[in-house]
């Protein structure tokens, strides 16, 4: 079975500037691919290229096994939902949804059937005669999705569809999109700058920066084994701690020496390491640093650290300390007795540690 979408060696230049650099990605039928990255990383441009709305300089795009690199959008068997919904302002909701079918010359009777199906699915039956200006943000979003659904395409493309909604609505619509994906089993490519959206919706994530793919993988892979410093920092909130450490190798793996002000350096060990350069950045997510009095475990290493700031956040309490000269966040249970200015015993789960080269930023383990 060929992948539903296959991008090979895609490059896009705009004049002298290189916007997309050697992008390779593919998804199978039914997958939910999320393109995520900071603004300007090229994710929207990549989506527009997949749609055929922007030309590419070199490379190929195949949809359903057919080469679509030079095919116009209307023949690519895709549908797209835009950030601003892009509903036709002078047409009713019904006309908005059926416009594409009308252009393609589909019989009115069939248009009506499809319209009714989609309106029922998205619960917008009562809105069919209204104009977009009379709808709320969430309703407009649904109409935009209805317009896409009615095409029954091979590929659904979403360009930051939730960015214009307020926080609560965003969470609701996110769930709706996820349910839609599960019910239809459709293939979706979704662009967002919100890494939480990416983690919750995706079956596969492409992290981008500066026009280049940083990492492709499942949400779990991206989260637990980021490929470089950028991915480690960008994905996950609060961000992964990146602690400078000096490495010494011995018979039992590696030892990491981390400096502390007004205290002797602390040392952590990882026996699974064969070799590492002298200086690395030790990556540990906040939830991998715990309160030793609340968390027990043989594999956890304990060290006594000074607490700088305590931030209670409901179900968790965040504690900030300074290690290796950088600010480190630990995510503790709410019952913790951590106090600002006091010292406390912390556990470090080195089994979850990531190591990064301090110069190239690449992952070393």
């Amino acid at each position, binding site marked *: 079975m060929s992948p539903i979408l296959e991008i090979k060696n895609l490059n896009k230049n705009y004049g002298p500037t290189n916007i997309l650099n050697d992008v390779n990605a593919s998804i199978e039928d039914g997958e939910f691919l999320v393109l995520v990255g900071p603004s300007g990383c090229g994710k929207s441009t990549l989506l*527009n290229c997949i749609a055929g*709305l922007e030309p590419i300089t070199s490379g190929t795009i195949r949809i359903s096994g057919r080469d679509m690199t030079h095919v116009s959008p209307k023949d690519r068997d895709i549908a797209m939902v835009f950030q601003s919904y*892009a509903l*036709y*302002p002078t047409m009713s909701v019904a006309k908005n949804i059926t416009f*594409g079918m009308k*252009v393609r010359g589909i019989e009115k009777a069939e248009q009506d059937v499809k319209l009714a199906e989609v309106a029922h699915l998205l619960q917008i039956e009562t809105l069919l005669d209204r104009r977009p200006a009379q709808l709320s943000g969430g309703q407009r979003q649904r109409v935009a999705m209805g317009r896409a659904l009615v095409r029954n395409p091979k590929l659904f493309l979403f360009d930051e569809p939730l960015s214009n909604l307020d926080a609560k609505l965003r969470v609701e619509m996110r769930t709706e999109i996820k349910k839609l994906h599960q019910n239809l089993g459709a293939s979706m490519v979704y662009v967002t700058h919100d890494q939480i959206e990416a983690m919750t919706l995706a079956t596969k994530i492409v992290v981008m920066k500066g026009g280049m793919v940083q990492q492709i993988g499942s949400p779990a892979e991206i989260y637990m084994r980021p490929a470089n410093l950028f991915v480690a920092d960008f994905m996950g909130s609060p961000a992964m701690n990146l602690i400078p450490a000096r490495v010494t190798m011995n018979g039992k793996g590696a030892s990491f020496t981390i400096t502390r002000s007004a205290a002797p350096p602390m040392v952590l060990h990882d026996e699974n390491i064969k070799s590492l350069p002298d200086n690395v950045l030790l990556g540990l997510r906040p939830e991998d640093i715990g309160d030793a009095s609340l968390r027990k475990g043989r594999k956890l290493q304990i060290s006594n650290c000074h607490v700088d700031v305590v931030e209670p956040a409901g179900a968790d309490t965040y504690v900030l300390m300074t290690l290796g000269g950088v600010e480190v966040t630990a995510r503790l249970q709410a019952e913790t007795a951590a106090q600002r200015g006091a010292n406390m015993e912390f556990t470090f789960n080195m089994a979850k540690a990531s190591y990064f080269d301090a110069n190239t930023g690449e992952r070393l383990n």
Partner: protein
Amino acid sequence: MTNSLITNPLRKMMKRLVLRWLLYLLLCTFALYYMMPLFVMITTSLKNLEEIRTGSLMSLPREITMAAWSTAWSSACTGIQCEGLRPYFWNSVLLAVPAVLISTIIGAINGYVVAQWRFKLSNILFALMLFGCFIPFQVVLLPMARVLGMTGLAGSISGLIFVHVIYGIGFTTLFFRNYYVTIPAELVKAAKVDGASFWRIFFSIFLPLSLPIIVVTVIWQFTQIWNDFLFGVSFSQAGTQPITVALNNIVNSTTGVKEYNVDMAAAIIAALPTLLVYIVAGKYFIRGLTAGSVKG
């Protein structure tokens, strides 16, 4: 001490009132300044010659007579012919209506292209076309006269329509472009994905949205073309002159007694269409005037 505490707020209020009255007085004075010529034109056109000679500029007519008006309309002399303004009024209508329509339609389509279908040279092309609005038309009078002569359009209304369309496209394109640029590009993208073609998108999506700018453009173009004199006097002949040329002929004709009341009546007749448009749709007219100038 207590005296000033009581009178101070009062004094302030009085000062504000006086200033306010001064403001209104100034504004009214200026309003009179602008109305004065119109007032003079109307009153003079309703007087008979005797009264004009003996009376004063701004006095109201002692006897109102419409004689000057009927002369201006049907028997004033514009050179050799003495048919009044009537035939020339229709010349202007025959000139203005097609010219306005054609230049507006072309401007709409051009503006659509420049705003939403940009290609590598489109901005430069637009700039070059825009520049054409700013040239003093004296610099094209001579060659245009030759071209009109060579194509047999010299002295004809069709020739004038042609000239006004050519030199009006710059402005109309600018108006539509500035308007279409505010329509989000995602709308065009969605339509492309839906399969709509260039023309489909224009007729189904952009045109229905365009009423405000169409009104502005039509009003602007109509005013420009109806009020034009330079092209009219350069490219028309005795039978095809627009009303502005005829008016000038009536006023500046050196034969016989100067009939000031007829002159004024003729001027008002010539001014009526654009004045009416302004009164009825003035809001849009102002929007048109400021649209191209105040770059937002």
